[in-house]
């Protein structure tokens, strides 16, 4: 399954660039995320509880950053397993462009879901994935809309990124 979309975020490109790699920010924005842990500059682990209707499964996985071209584009590659529920893997190509002091974020997501959850939920996987992606970016937008809270939180990350 593939999907693509574009979002406008009211923050500078550098700020958004730092945000999408900041474990604390990802933890806040990924729907159902319980924890994100940074292993290195390009590697993190995450625990996400997926709740769709009656289904509730905990996925544990790894996220890596590839093709990093700061602050314009990167690819997030992830893989996770949810025990008996199944497994998921996917990637997101993210591009950031400047526009009148704001940032236009474009993403293209490829995802593959397998195992029991895919067999039973085939009719729902596409719309669920779209909904989760939309919620992620809604939360990200909200973080920047809520009075610069996100900017403050990200200052150390920004200076570390140089």
């Amino acid at each position: 399954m593939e999907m693509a979309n574009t979002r406008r975020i009211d923050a500078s490109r550098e700020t958004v660039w730092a945000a999408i790699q900041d474990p604390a920010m990802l933890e806040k924005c990924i729907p159902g995320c319980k924890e994100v842990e940074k292993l290195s500059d390009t590697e993190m682990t995450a625990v996400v509880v997926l709740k769709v209707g009656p289904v509730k499964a905990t996925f544990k996985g790894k996220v890596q950053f590839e093709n990093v071209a700061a602050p314009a584009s990167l690819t997030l590659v992830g893989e996770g397993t949810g025990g008996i529920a199944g497994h998921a893997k996917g990637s997101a190509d993210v591009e950031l462009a400047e526009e009148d002091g704001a940032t236009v974020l474009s993403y293209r997501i490829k995802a593959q879901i397998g195992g029991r959850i895919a067999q039973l939920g085939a009719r729902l996987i596409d719309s669920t994935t779209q909904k989760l992606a939309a919620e992620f970016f809604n939360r990200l937008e909200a973080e920047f809309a809520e009075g610069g809270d996100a900017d403050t939180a990200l200052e150390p990350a920004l200076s570390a990124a140089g």
Partner: protein
Amino acid sequence: MNGFAYLTPGDLAEALALLRQGDEASPLAGGQTLVPTMKQGLAAPETLIDLGGLAELAGLRVTPTHVEVGAMCPHAVVAADPEVRAACPALADLAGMIGDAQVRNRGTIGGSIANNDPAADYPAACLGLNAVIRTDRRDIDADDFFLSMFDTALEPGELIVSVAFPRCREAAYLKFRNPASRFALAGVFLARHEDGVRIAVTGAGTDGVFRWSEAEAALGREFTATALAGLAVPVEDMLGDLHAAADYRAHLVKVLTARALAAISQRA
């Protein structure tokens, strides 16, 4: 399937108190979605609170203005009730089209709308008939109840007590079903009220049940097939999956709306 505790409260207050005790407790209505999900290991509540013994949620009653169905009333009872059929034949028809005989004997209206599966039938009746969902703490209009697929206005620990359907002039429910699952690939509930037309569509929208307001306005002005002719639901809002592509579902919605209109016109 994982082990779980099974509790059988005797009334609504006791059920609510049990639900408040933990996150991992789940209310059990007819179990037609929850139990198969548990059997597959895709859900593992620690406690099931069976609502079957709650008199407050049982039965149904037909008044001069409403058909009020208790949350635990099974589909088969609604389908076979002569008073429901006389007051709102479309509602009885819809209940009779849900799933198969086993699902209709066990499944309940409360379970169906609390789950809000994007292809379930009852959400279309609630939205089309402008129902009020009565819970243990408040009344919620159907327009405010269904938020998006599998998502409703219900708070954690809130239980549906009954659903009150206002009686309308006439209504029809038409469904094109997946022959295997019997879920709606598209289902259209068309209702003519004293103050206008409501059209609720299930099974087709990416965000679950929705109202087709453009067609409502058109049929409100002129209740004929001609009024529908130039209209179309936006393909980008339609669900596409291995059973039916988005443009096919958009087409089905229009065809079913026209058939519902024809069914009402023939009856009149």
